[in-house]
């Protein structure tokens, strides 16, 4: 048996894995359906998103040029790598340059599938550096010495007991299955890493050509940490990962989180345009087979925005999980691009599909994955175009013979008769045949006998009965009159913020309300964004105010540039007094927002972020679902978000 089939059997017989995967499929699919319920025009958005991505891939060279030009003008250093080896060399050079002796550096890394493509961690470690994955799921698989098994939920294959045992073995804590305790343990360990790391490594969800900015979407806060705290930030980006404009980005952001995790917006949507004070930012743009893929009939697969919803919808992924694919990218999209990016040894993955089309239905940019799978099967990932790639030899021979018969009606009819006689000999008494498992079909089902008299011999030409055609009038689908109820933005903002676990307080005087809050919490020191509260009143009330990050401070207070009604989000932008850190490092984030600054949605606000060095859209407290998809609040970012809404 070939290794792929062996891995398939192993995955299927692993009961724990099956349980984890069933849970993932059910919950993710439900969450996705619910999330799209709040976006009635999503089919139309999906087609627009498809068109945007098609345009980007069609005109990739000019969009890349525009993106690079703008990013460089913003003070970001751009590096281009044609393959994995080149990218690794660039990153090693960046990491190794400057900094403190000895040469070993601490690298805090947030999720990046590109880094998996590069096999980056072993390369960095071989050079003497220490790399720590900081996404909870990635951290868990790193401790286990594994690869992520899902592009969004890396530890989807594990149960809480596995994580409990792992943390007991590797981190020396008492064994526990309590997810908040496990999460908190990782938070403590990783907090040290964030604060001392020399380099932050991240991926990129989207690059925006017109601004040269990059967008990162995360939930836990680790992505914000690694892009904000270390002196050097290196972002790894696939060359196809662009959108032309901020409007296009806003469109994508309505689809990506809903598809990936069933959220209207992820907790943190960052827009990064420039380096922060004293910081170096680099973007490494990777080709690694993408140009070849773009020139092939698999081009449409480059439209992918890596949401993972095709994995969640796929019945094959539901049986296998990610590891059995034996490739960096798994699921339907992985079965298409692996052969295209990494070579035809991955072509057999595409045979492992019933072409049921659930992936296409789930895709937020409407990639025709079943069609692409058949193209891989037809050898189109390869220049050589070897048809039937990955197909077992006897099957290929059988289908070749079938093709000869099916183009000749007389041969076809004769074969039918012969088959009927044959199957009748094999199984004279029953309408069924019990085939051996080795035939494939016989593994789990019986096969029907051929009819002795096929339809073609039974059909008799005759006129139809001239009965009156009973036509019942077509039920016209009742028009849904959703008279656009213009809901009050403040009301909607409040509901959405509560739904994501945030709190809201209406106040005439933000300083007084926050003083009350701090008294109740027994807090006397805060990290405050300047010009947010009345600092003399705070001083008079006995509070110490810091305008710089300090990991021992428990409460951070910032302004919000805007609020977003449809997601309950607040926009925090970089400025004096380190508001990005104030909204990230402390356990509690207090936000001062003016009622009149609440806008309907991100699409109305995204242009305001154009001029910022770096900005983040915060949607509730930091969270993770990386352990058995159990929602845990407060990973790396604040566990509480309180909005003080003023006139």
């Amino acid at each position: 048996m070939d290794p792929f089939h062996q891995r398939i059997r192993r995955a299927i017989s692993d009961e724990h894995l099956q349980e984890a995967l069933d849970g993932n499929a059910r919950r993710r699919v439900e969450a996705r359906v619910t999330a799209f319920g709040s976006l009635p025009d999503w089919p139309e958005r999906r087609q627009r998103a498809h068109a945007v991505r098609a345009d980007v891939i069609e005109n990739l060279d000019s969009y890349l040029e525009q993106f690079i030009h703008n990013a460089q003008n913003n003070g970001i250093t751009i590096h281009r790598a044609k393959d994995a080896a080149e990218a690794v060399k660039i990153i090693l050079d960046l990491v190794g340059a400057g900094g403190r002796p000895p040469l070993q550096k601490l690298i805090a890394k947030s999720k990046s599938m590109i880094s998996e493509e590069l096999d980056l961690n072993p390369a960095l470690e071989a050079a003497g550096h220490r790399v720590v994955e900081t996404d909870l799921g990635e951290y868990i698989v790193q401790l286990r010495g594994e690869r992520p098994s899902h592009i969004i939920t890396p530890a989807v294959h594990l149960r809480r007991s596995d994580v409990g045992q792992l943390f007991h073995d590797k981190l020396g804590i008492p064994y526990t299955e309590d997810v908040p305790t496990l999460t908190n343990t990782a938070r403590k360990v990783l907090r040290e890493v964030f604060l001392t790391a020399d380099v932050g490594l991240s991926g990129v969800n989207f690059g925006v050509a017109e601004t040269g900015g990059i967008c990162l979407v995360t939930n836990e806060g680790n992505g914000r940490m690694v892009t904000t705290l270390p002196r050097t930030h290196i972002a790894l980006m696939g060359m196809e990962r662009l959108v032309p404009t901020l409007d296009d980005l806003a469109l994508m952001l309505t689809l990506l989180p809903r598809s990936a995790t069933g959220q209207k917006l992820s907790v943190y949507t960052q827009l990064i345009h420039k380096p922060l004070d004293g910081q170096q930012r680099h973007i490494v743009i990777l080709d690694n087979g993408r140009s070849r893929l773009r020139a092939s009939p698999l081009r449409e697969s480059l439209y992918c925005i890596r949401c993972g919803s095709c994995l969640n919808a796929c019945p094959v992924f539901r049986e296998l999980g990610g590891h059995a694919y034996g490739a960096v990218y798994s699921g339907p999209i992985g079965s298409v691009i692996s052969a295209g990016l990494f070579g035809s040894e991955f072509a057999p993955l595409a045979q492992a599909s019933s072409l049921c089309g659930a992936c296409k239905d789930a895709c937020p940019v409407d990639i025709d994955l079943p069609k692409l799978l058949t193209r891989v099967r037809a050898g189109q990932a390869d220049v050589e175009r070897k048809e039937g790639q990955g197909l077992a030899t006897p099957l290929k021979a059988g289908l070749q013979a079938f093709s000869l018969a099916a183009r000749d009606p007389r041969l076809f009819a004769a074969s039918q008769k012969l088959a009927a006689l044959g199957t009748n000999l094999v199984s004279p008494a029953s309408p069924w045949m019990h085939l051996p498992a080795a035939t494939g079909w016989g593994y789990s089902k019986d096969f029907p006998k051929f009819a002795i008299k096929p339809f073609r011999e039974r059909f008799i030409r005759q006129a139809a009965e001239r009965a009156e055609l009973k036509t019942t009038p077509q039920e016209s689908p009742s028009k849904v009159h959703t008279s656009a109820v213009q809901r009050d933005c403040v009301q909607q903002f409040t509901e959405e913020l509560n739904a994501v676990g945030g709190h809201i307080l209406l106040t005439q005087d933000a300083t007084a309300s926050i003083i009350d809050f701090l008294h109740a919490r027994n807090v006397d020191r805060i990290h405050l964004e300047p010009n947010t509260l009345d600092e003399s009143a705070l001083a008079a009330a006995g509070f110490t105010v810091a305008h710089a990050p300090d990991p021992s401070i428990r409460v951070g207070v910032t302004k919000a540039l805007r609020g977003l009604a449809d997601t309950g989000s607040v926009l925090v932008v970089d400025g004096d007094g380190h508001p990005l850190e104030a909204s990230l490092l402390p356990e509690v984030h207090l936000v001062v927002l003016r009622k009149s600054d609440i806008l309907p949605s991100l699409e109305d606000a995204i242009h305001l972020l154009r001029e910022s060095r770096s900005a983040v859209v915060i949607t509730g407290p930091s969270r993770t679902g990386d352990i058995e998809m159990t929602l845990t609040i407060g990973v790396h970012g604040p566990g509480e978000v309180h909005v003080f809404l003023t006139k």
Partner: protein
Amino acid sequence: MPTVQLFVTCLIDSFYPHVGEAVVDVLRRLGVDVDFPRDQTCCGQPNFNAGLREEAKPIAQHTIRTFEAVDGDVVIPSGSCAHMLRHNYAELFADDPHWLPRAKALASRTYEFTEYLVDKLGVTDVGARWDGPLTYHATCHLHRGVGVDRQPRTLLAHVRGAEVRPLPEEYDCCGFGGIFSVEHPELSAEFLKRKIRNLESTQSPTLVVADTGCLMHIAGGLHRQQKTQRVIHIAELLNNI
């Protein structure tokens, strides 16, 4: 009265001729003249799906020629084969200026059976009856491939006496997938197990499908597991008067 050309599909022709007869009976009862071009064989989907496109092409060309020779709409009692003609022929001949327009012309006059009844004839009640519970499995290429889902459900809803019970996870693949069921027996078996479990949970003795590939697959699994449920094609149900 319209004349339609029946493309009966190789599975019905070879294994389930009575389903073909049910299709003919239902259509004739509704006043439609049914003809059966005798040169027809298979649509070529097994080879196409396996990636053997060069071998799928002559089969597709044979099918196009066979139906070009006759007039009227082409009716196919299979979502999967209808999907092949309607979408995959265009993919197969995408770079072939001679065959592409001919493939598209055939696609434009091709209907899946329930789609033809409901959308083309405007019939929702064919006068069928059925005693007792049944459940319906939406086959993948029917509802996702050709986008036909409302039509079979409308027809089912009008069958007198039938109690249509919802099938849990009704849109999940049964694991047939043509060559997939042979090439990946382990995966196929898992899909099938789940489908049969869901069927059992409805306590319905009858499962209705509109695709004989899926019918053959699910029925074969039920027989192997010595279950008593029956799988029937929707034409058999609609022909039960």
